[in-house]
């Protein structure tokens, strides 16, 4: 069985509203980095909340490591397995000193003090914020705050972290900081689910899933998905500028080699064409 598996899930926030998710299925393997794309209101954030039992499906089942999220006895285990990082860093920090903030989660899990100390240090090192451990969170930049929020989740040792638009409020360098922290977590074997509107971030994933109307519209490697430029545009989405340029040139008769996904690949593509 897959690490996370959602089977024919339907969900609506109230009986009067139509289904946000409609016969939605999803499988995520352990250690995978999956990007979830889709326009506002397509059900992405609902999926995030279903994965850690904050919401329960009306129909269908969600399994996390074989545990049914609808089983209340397992809610605690599921939530300590699946961490959630949200958009606004200011809403996620609770303490007035960074290391205390990171310790908040493991303290609530009832972990021994020595172990907490160890986890806090490791987590802060993992996101490159160790040297700030005695600072106050309100003096950090957005990217730094978001990395502290990630450390707070890491200290609970989840096997998967779901990121719901973690960079939407950050400046360009803050976005890069958070994305490189996410990539290094993936290297440590943590399963990553990234919800984003930035196509440049989605290209870093192993697999991209595009949602529309509560269903999966298309999924595949970033290169497969972003080659479907017209389909994505029809569904309110975008492709990286590098991909769009190549796509338009291909339309004008330039010979297709490999669809570029980032600036470096696009330079390579154009050099090949202009050679």
């Amino acid at each position, binding site marked *: 069985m897959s690490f996370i598996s959602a089977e024919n899930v339907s969900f609506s926030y109230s009986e009067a509203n139509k289904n946000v998710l409609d016969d939605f299925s999803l499988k995520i393997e352990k250690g995978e980095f999956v990007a979830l794309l889709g326009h506002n209101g397509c059900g992405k954030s609902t999926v995030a909340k279903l994965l850690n039992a904050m919401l329960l499906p009306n129909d269908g089942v969600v399994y996390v490591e074989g545990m049914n999220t609808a089983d209340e006895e397992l809610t605690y285990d599921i939530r300590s397995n699946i961490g959630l990082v949200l958009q606004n860093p200011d809403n996620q920090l609770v303490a007035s000193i960074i290391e205390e903030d990171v310790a908040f989660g493991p303290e609530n899990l009832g972990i021994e003090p020595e172990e907490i100390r160890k986890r806090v240090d490791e987590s802060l090192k993992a996101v490159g914020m160790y040297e700030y451990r005695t600072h106050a969170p309100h003096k950090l930049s957005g990217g730094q705050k978001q990395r502290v929020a990630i450390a707070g989740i890491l200290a609970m040792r989840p096997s998967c972290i779901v990121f719901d638009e973690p960079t939407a409020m950050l400046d360009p360098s803050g976005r890069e900081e958070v994305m490189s922290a996410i990539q290094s977590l993936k290297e440590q074997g943590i399963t990553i689910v990234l919800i984003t509107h930035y196509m440049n971030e989605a290209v870093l994933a192993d697999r991209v899933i595009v949602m529309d109307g509560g269903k999966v519209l298309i999924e595949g490697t970033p290169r497969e998905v972003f080659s479907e430029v017209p389909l994505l545009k029809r569904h309110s989405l975008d492709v990286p500028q590098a991909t769009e340029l190549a796509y*338009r040139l291909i339309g004008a008769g330039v010979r297709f080699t490999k669809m570029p996904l980032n600036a470096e690949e696009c330079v390579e593509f*154009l050099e090949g064409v202009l050679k």
Partner: protein
Amino acid sequence: MSLIEVKNLSFTYGIGTPFEKKAVDDLSLSINEGEIIGLIGHTGSGKSTFVQTLNGLIKPTEGQVLLEGKDIWEKPKEIRKVRFKVGMVFQYPEYQLFDETVYKDISFGPANKGLSGDDLDKTVRRAARFVSLNDRLLDKSPFDLSGGEKRRAAIAGVIAMDPDVLVLDEPTAGLDPKGRDLLLSQIIGYHRERKNTIILVSHSMEDVARVADRIMVMNRGKLEMLDTPRAVFSRVEELERMGLRVPQITRVMTILREKGYDFSDGILTVGQAFDEVLSLLKKEGKL
């Protein structure tokens, strides 16, 4: 004529406390009537503090803000008038929606300004039209709208004040690509019709490259650049040192230009890049 003139403006937070911090440092510039200015800068560069000095939400500790040639703090009791002229849309403005219906929410500002009856009705509907909220939505509760609609309703509330200067702080944050494009084209459409001055604060280099006549770059409270998007985004290294980036397409074309390909400096959109690559291919007989 310059509509806004900022002279040696400084603002220091927490003077006399251990947290004293100069957020805006000796900033001078002038903004012309009818311009769209894009304002970019790293988090904490002083952007938000600066824009809040423009309508008197923050009083400068040194220097002046002149609106139509007059110091806005000349008569502090009349600062309210300045706020009618300089409208401010804060980040995530949808959190500020409060009234029972979208219509009432949009009319709150202009009603406070003294409008009533037909004039008020016309103003509200006009503002709603600028952001493409149709009449059907006006009678709904703002809390029943989708995220994108809420954002547009909140912006309509400020547009309804008919400000000469409209400041938008990150209006597209959190919107999906289509919502972002839609909102930006509505802002441009509104600007074309109303011909007012717009200041757009953004972390999206692609957005400011697309809409701004001039871009101002702030770093550590200082004004580092104020120039056309082309000129600003051709200074790739300086921007990167300030924690900023250029649009991806600009980066691609800059790398190729440095490798000796004959492309213009500071290409900002996929359309421009496409045209240049295509004409080079044709010139060299490769297509």
